[in-house]
């Protein structure tokens, strides 16, 4: 009985021990859960997120590059790399067939998909959003598209050397893509995507955390159509003259804006704009700047004469020659006929330092400050380094290396009344929200010569075109001032070669109030190598074509350079548009330079209705009238009407069928 009582007590105790153990165990579990979920909760949650979520980069579209008129030169488009997970496909062979037919892929890739041995297959190439959607419509599961932002060039390789290229990662590699990389580059965002333990992720679980912010758009000063024209004209010229290369620049002298900049080499594609990076000895095209120095310093007058004798002049142990003897020449004539001898004699009047400082002042030997990643300063030695021959050499454009860009800007100073402008290639950069992120307004570097000196030189240069070496640059109905240059090329082995030349021409149009400065340079043209025989006609072609086209709307005609009021940081409207005219050159274009275009010359306005405005304008212009274009599309009427007898030089208004309002009210200071 005692043992039974002990047994009962024992059992009783054990019952309670069981209960205690149960409660302890549950308490332990709750305590552990408290520790994991509350005390260490954040830590575990962090680990959970780390393994459940993958950061998905959301690429930001790179900014676009526009021309001055807002025409797209470079845009970004999103394409897709497509990955296939065969294991997720409902029907592998059917999916492979769809992929093959939609994307037109070869049998190799589709075979791999159908086999399904590999868990992850990347389809070769990138695909458009449309292709991607088509595919996703028919294959609901197993496709994993990855957006890729790449660059697209709506106008092909237009201005390729200027805009440059991006590398594989979408970063600027050359040109403005490189120079404006930080502006063009957007801020990529990221999303978070849930993934499972196999690494597969579910698109429907992707959440955008930080939205990508697109890069800013860059507006160039270039005019796409003028650029296209410049490129094709240069291309043709290089081919026809069998030149090894060439450059063509079109600049608005009053603002310093580059409207077109083309560089070509016959045998290879250029990595950059050689007009800014490759200096050369410009020869005669540099003569006006020594003349400008003489005039500005009052050391000579245009009427001063020197005797150039039989076309050769010996100075400092070197003989300087002209192509033909000119006898006694005034300074103006010296420049117009481009007499080397005359220039050498006149240059002796200049102290070395003065000659140097004027050339330096015109921008030679220093970078222009173009917003372009690379630029050569050229070479202009200090007087202390000069030899006895240097002064004469510099006067005729040797012993100095200049870039075409420097040269065109120096001519710009002659064109605009004596101000050296900073060359502009990029006008502004606007963020996607319309904020100005970068802006460059026309900037005067310095006054180089007084206005009257510039005016005198323009007069002489105009004469150079009508009478002198640049005759073939003359454009009917348009007064052109300009200067040719034919420089012997220096060769490392042979020194100055008698066979190799650089032919160049710089033109100011119209000559009395130049709106444009055009530089054409051809390297090693074969055949008629003189500047007047090669470069100048190129320029004529360029100007003719330009005048006939609608691309002329951009440069504001008369008056102040257009500078919008908006300040940086304030939302701006579109880039300033030009006048409504096709021809900004609606000033008296027809000068008495061409005797055939005198007052008695009267003709009936031809029927240009139905022609494109461009063709119609060209036709009217060739007939000798000034043309103002209203509207767009095709020509529907002229004013005066078709058949009206009209003196050449008068104005004809050409009305287009598209009556969209002009982008700007008529320039009050414009049409005469």
């Amino acid at each position: 009985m005692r043992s039974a009582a002990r047994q009962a007590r024992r059992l009783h105790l054990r019952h309670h021990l069981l209960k205690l153990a149960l409660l302890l165990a549950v308490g332990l579990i709750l305590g552990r859960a408290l520790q994991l979920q509350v005390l260490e909760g954040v830590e575990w949650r962090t680990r959970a997120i780390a393994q459940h979520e993958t950061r998905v980069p959301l690429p930001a579209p790179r900014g676009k590059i526009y021309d001055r008129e807002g025409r797209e030169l470079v845009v970004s488009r999103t394409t897709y790399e497509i990955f296939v997970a065969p294991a997720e496909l409902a029907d592998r062979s059917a999916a492979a067939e769809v992929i093959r037919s939609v994307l037109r892929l070869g049998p190799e890739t589709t075979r791999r998909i159908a086999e399904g041995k590999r868990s992850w297959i990347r389809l070769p190439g990138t695909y458009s959003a449309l292709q991607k959607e088509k595919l996703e419509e028919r294959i609901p599961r197993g496709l994993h598209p990855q957006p890729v932002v790449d660059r697209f060039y709506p106008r092909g390789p237009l201005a390729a050397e200027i805009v440059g290229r991006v590398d594989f990662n979408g970063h600027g590699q050359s040109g403005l893509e490189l120079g404006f990389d930080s502006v063009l580059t957007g801020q990529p965002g990221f999303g978070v995507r849930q993934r499972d333990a196999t690494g597969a992720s579910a698109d429907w679980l992707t959440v955008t955390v930080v939205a990508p912010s697109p890069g800013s758009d860059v507006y160039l000063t270039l005019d796409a159509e003028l650029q296209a024209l410049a490129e094709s004209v240069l291309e043709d010229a290089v081919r026809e003259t069998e030149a090894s290369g060439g450059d063509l620049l079109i600049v608005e002298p009053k603002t310093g804006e580059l409207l077109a900049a083309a560089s070509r080499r016959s045998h290879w594609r250029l990595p950059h704009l050689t007009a800014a990076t490759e200096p050369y000895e410009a020869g005669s095209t540099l003569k006006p700047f020594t003349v400008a120095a003489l005039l500005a310093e009052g050391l000579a007058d245009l009427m001063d004469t020197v005797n150039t004798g039989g076309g050769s002049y010996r100075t400092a142990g070197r003989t300087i020659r002209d192509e033909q003897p000119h006898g006694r020449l005034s300074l103006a004539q010296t420049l117009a006929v481009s007499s080397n001898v005359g220039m050498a004699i006149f240059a002796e009047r200049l102290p070395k330092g003065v000659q140097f400082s004027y050339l330096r002042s015109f921008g030679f030997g220093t970078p222009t400050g173009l917003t372009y990643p690379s630029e050569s300063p050229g070479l202009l030695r200090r007087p202390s380094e000069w030899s006895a021959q240097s002064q004469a050499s510099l006067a005729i454009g040797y012993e100095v290396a200049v870039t075409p860009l420097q040269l065109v800007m120096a001519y710009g100073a002659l064109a605009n009344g004596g101000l050296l402008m900073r060359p502009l290639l990029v006008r502004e950069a606007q963020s996607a929200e319309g904020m100005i992120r970068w802006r460059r307004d026309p900037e005067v570097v310095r006054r180089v010569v007084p206005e009257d000196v510039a005016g005198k030189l323009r007069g002489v240069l105009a004469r150079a075109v009508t009478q002198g070496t640049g005759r073939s640059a003359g454009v009917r109905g348009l007064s052109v001032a300009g200067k040719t240059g034919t420089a012997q090329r220096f060769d490392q082995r042979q020194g100055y070669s008698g066979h190799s030349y650089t032919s160049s021409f710089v033109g100011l149009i119209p000559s009395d109030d130049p709106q444009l400065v055009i530089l054409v340079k051809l390297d090693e043209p074969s055949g008629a190598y003189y500047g007047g025989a090669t470069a100048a006609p190129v320029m004529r072609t360029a100007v003719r074509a330009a005048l006939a086209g609608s691309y002329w709307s951009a440069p504001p005609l008369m008056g102040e350079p257009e500078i919008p009021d908006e300040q940086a940081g304030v939302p701006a409207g579109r880039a300033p548009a030009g006048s409504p005219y096709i021809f900004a050159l609606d000033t008296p274009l027809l000068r008495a330079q061409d005797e055939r275009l005198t007052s008695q010359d009267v003709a009936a306005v031809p029927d240009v209705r139905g022609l494109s405005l461009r063709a119609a304008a060209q036709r009217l212009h060739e007939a000798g009238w000034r043309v103002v274009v209203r509207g767009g599309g095709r020509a529907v009427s002229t004013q005066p009407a078709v058949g009206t007898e009209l003196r050449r030089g008068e104005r004809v208004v050409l009305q287009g069928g598209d009556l969209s309002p002009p982008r700007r009210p008529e320039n009050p200071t414009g049409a005469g």
Partner: protein
Amino acid sequence: MKDLAASLAVDAYVPAAGSARRDAGMLLAITVFLVLVGLITVYSASSFLAQKQGLPDHYYLRQQASKALVGLLVLYVLARLDYRIYRRLAWPLLGVTLLALFVLVLPGTEAIAPPRNGARRWLDLGVQVQPSELAKLVMVIWAAALAAKKGERLRSLRWGLAAFGVIYLPVAFLIVLEPDLSSAALIGLLCAIVLFTAGARIGHFILLGLIALPLFWEWIQAASYRMARLVTFLDAGSDPSGVGYQLRQSLIAVGSGGVLGVGYGESAQKYFFLPEPHNDFAFAIIAEEWGLVGVGTVALSVAVLGVLGLRIARRAPDVFGYLLAVGLTALIVVSALMHMGVSLGLLPTTGVTFPFISYGGSSLVVSLAAVGILLNVGSWRT
């Protein structure tokens, strides 16, 4: 036997009138609640898996629901079946169980005992049956019957533990061969609890433990993955990617649940981070989706269920009823505690089902059957 019943009734606690009915009602309510929690959890944890397998998302839910209905039917029947019948049925039931376990390990029986994931745990008799689940129930019944019969003699080594060992060891051996180490261990533990409750000597348990340890040790070492599991359990942070994976994933699931959980159906760990999220790690999913609130609710339900089971046991009309009720309560509660312990990293990672909650028909039906028998024990007046 009267002494025992009397000694238990002498307890300071005297159940109030009608409390037995109330306990039974509560037990049933908690059971049904846990079954519902199970269905909800199984759906959340398995829908993704089902879809990946090309099945409708509610495939596993429907399977579990139909088993739950079968289980509730079994519960109803057994609640009305006099529990004393199991005293006589203990041996025959044991025989059937041994036969079933034997079939699993026999060569040439793959047709009805197909291997799955490298283990043969299921008998395919039209419905899938897991004999080791049945063995848990049968061994509890058998242990209770034997202990009740032996009475005082249980305290002798020869007539007590040794006799149990004779039966337990073959059963455990067969189960280990499947292999299903954790079930064998659990059955041993359940039998031990029954014997402990019945008054077996503590010294015998210690002796048994000392004998079992090297056996298990050798066996554990033989299977290197089990070794790795144990080692990583002892030092969970040492291996971020290898064998500690399951444990770490479970802890991440539990820990990331926080206080309120990530929300129903929002578990991220079920996306294959946790193996068998609807089964071996169902509790981890609950902890993740419902947080500490869910953990507390489930754990307390288990605690209440255990207390109710012990109370029913104490009111049992005889020693067999008492031991049977304790054993059945332990069957449910110990499984649940082990499952939770594994999920929380308190126990080595091993596959233990959570009664009522984990996916799996055998476990569910057996657990409900256990509750049915418990209810019958509780329905008898002393």
